[in-house]
């Protein structure tokens, strides 16, 4: 009796936290808002989706709050960026969740990076003298629309594997997602033409995939090494580099302090451009297509 009462209270309480759509079968939790948005696009009403990080938050430094454990303990799928992006907090959450389905080796453990052609995979010896280097490769791959498609296909495969009855729905949703992405992409012809080959500076290596896609030329980074704050000596060198290359835009995420970027901009005549790296990174940029669309158009406008 007590057990039934507890279960009733628990379900009511949790129901208040997360209203599940009718007919939902798979509970999906993602580490980032980008994976969340693509998972929702593919899963539709057959899944419930939640995300741990916010788009305006540095995904490297998310706190492993116990409330996230509650999201994960009943999850069927845990989808994460991988490549050690979540290394500082994911192990705590997975240990805390005590959910074998989403532990490594479980059916719901989905390392999305394994479907992605990677950039910046270090060669030779790697150590922390190189900063917060990611030994397995650059994890910010979602900022290339082609990788957005790969992520969608991976979700379709995983959801179909776990919920075969929904295969047709997932297939249709995935195709629809790609079609919408293709349509948006076709509107960027002018912008991509304008961006191609232009020199810019980025704060962090998170814009490498975006640069590969747009063919913009990143001539320097605000960080002297990944994850290391700018030093005066580095900024002095960067100013010289920008003057030499003619870089007129400094691209940065909304979660970095822009004072140093403003300092460099003041000495080079460049413009500081804050771009959302993820869904929800800025107000009004609420889905994956909007992020890509906003970033491409804003960069083109700034150049």
């Amino acid at each position, binding site marked *: 009796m007590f057990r039934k009462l507890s279960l009733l209270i628990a379900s009511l309480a949790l129901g208040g936290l997360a209203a599940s759509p009718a007919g939902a079968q798979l509970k999906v939790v993602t580490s980032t808002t980008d994976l969340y948005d693509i998972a929702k696009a593919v899963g539709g009403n057959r899944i419930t989706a939640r995300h741990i990080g916010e788009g305006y938050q540095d995904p490297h*430094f998310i*706190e492993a709050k116990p409330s996230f454990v509650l999201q994960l303990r009943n999850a069927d799928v845990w989808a994460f960026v991988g490549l050690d992006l979540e290394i500082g907090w994911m192990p705590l959450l997975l240990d805390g969740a005590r959910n074998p389905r989403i532990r490594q080796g479980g059916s719901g453990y989905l390392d999305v990076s394994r479907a992605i052609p990677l*950039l910046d995979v270090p060669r030779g010896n790697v150590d922390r003298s190189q900063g917060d280097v990611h030994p397995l490769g650059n994890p910010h791959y979602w900022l290339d629309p082609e990788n957005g498609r790969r992520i969608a296909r991976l979700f379709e495969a995983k959801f179909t594997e776990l919920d075969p009855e929904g295969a047709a729905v997932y297939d249709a949703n995935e195709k629809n997602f790609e079609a919408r992405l293709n349509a948006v992409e076709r509107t960027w012809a002018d912008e991509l033409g304008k961006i191609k080959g232009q020199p810019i500076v980025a704060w962090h290596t998170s814009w490498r995939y975006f640069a590969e896609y747009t063919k913009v030329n990143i001539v320097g980074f605000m960080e002297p090494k990944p994850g290391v704050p700018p030093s005066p000596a580095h900024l002095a060198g960067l100013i010289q580099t920008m003057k030499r290359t003619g870089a007129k835009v400094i691209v940065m995420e909304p979660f970095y302090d822009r004072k140093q970027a403003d300092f460099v901009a003041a000495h080079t005549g460049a413009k500081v451009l804050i771009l959302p790296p993820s869904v929800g990174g800025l107000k009004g940029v609420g889905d994956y297509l909007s992020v890509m669309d906003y970033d491409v158009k804003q960069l083109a406008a700034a150049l």
Partner: protein
Amino acid sequence: MRVLTALCLSMAAATTMRGQVPTTPRDSAARAKAKADSIARADSIALVRELEKLQGARPDTTSRVTGAQGPTNPRLLPDFSAVGDFVADLSPKGSTQEDGTRIGVREVELAVQAAVDPYFRGDVFLGISDEEGISIEQAFLTTTALPHELELKIGRFLMPVGKQNTTHRHDLHTVEYPYVIQKFFGPEGQKGTGLWLSRVFAPFGFYQEIQLTMIDRIAEKNDSLETGVAVNRTLGGLGYSARLRNYWDLNESTNLEVSAWGLTGVREEPTLTAVGNINALNARQTTGGLDFTFRWRPLQQGLYKSFILQSEWMKQSTRSVSGFIPGPLCRDMCPPVAIPVFVATERTNYGGGYVFARYQITQRGFIGARYDQVQDPEFAGGTTHAGSAYLEFFPSEFSKITAMYERYAPPAGIDINRILLQATFALGPHKPHPF
């Protein structure tokens, strides 16, 4: 032997013949369904590849490396890591360190961590110091596949008594544990060897966790104390603890954790006089406490701003020993021999706690302050006060430099000014510590 061989051959033949029996439509359907299921369960990556081929995915023209390259740890090596903890004591009236050093390596911690098998993870932490040599700080198996959100640890661990006790000393925001922990449990906190069972639940919509332990003993064995009977002779002499954690997100930037806990067990308490080699009595000690942690960290500016307010208060009750009288009054805690034995004649109740705050001033810099108050068992319950201030600098996530000033006021004697500098570093994939 021939008979056995013939039997095996006949069984094998029978199996083969069964395999050759014509299939019925129902069998075919079942097999087709099984095949479909196995295809459905095939590796997701293979499916993605297939889809890419079918849909004529854009060929990669860059020097990219595809993620699915095989295992990154083909030899299944565990994670090895090390933490160095150095302390310099610049106090004006001399060193205040246990070993009397002005500049010393307080401890080096070596950790080996890995999944043991599909059911357990293993963690081993060895502490190395000039004073203690090599010691097992922690070593435990943790279950990874128990149902009902249960987790069991087997081994030695930092006990879930309060908030800071579960944090390694080198990872504290302060240089040393709060005095209430040092005075009640020792300078390195309360450890235990035994079983730890915990369960996460949320009947009221917020995070709750119950943590129960059963440990061999609540205090390290002191070889100079002899009671004539082991503290863990009966199951009642083992250590038992329970802690209930409660956690709330107040909003996306702030959260609150409030916990209550209790620990009871038996330990050796020295007596004023000795009979033969008996110079101590097994005495029950019970400690209970409350801890409270408030955190603020705005998500967007989380790299640069954060604040923690933390407090713990606890009460410890111990039988005190004041003399010896003949055995009949001694009851169950005394040696089972007909000699005059020591007896607990009164109970001491000491309390204490601290309040700690820490504010982030830059991406790498923090300031903090702590106020301690504890009824010191070493001074028969006289109250020790201490106020300390901290400046922390993190060159990176893997190194830390802390400066501390403290005004320490013991119940007897003169107040002491303490100035400590601490440097710590971590090598290797040191696992993140609990939230």
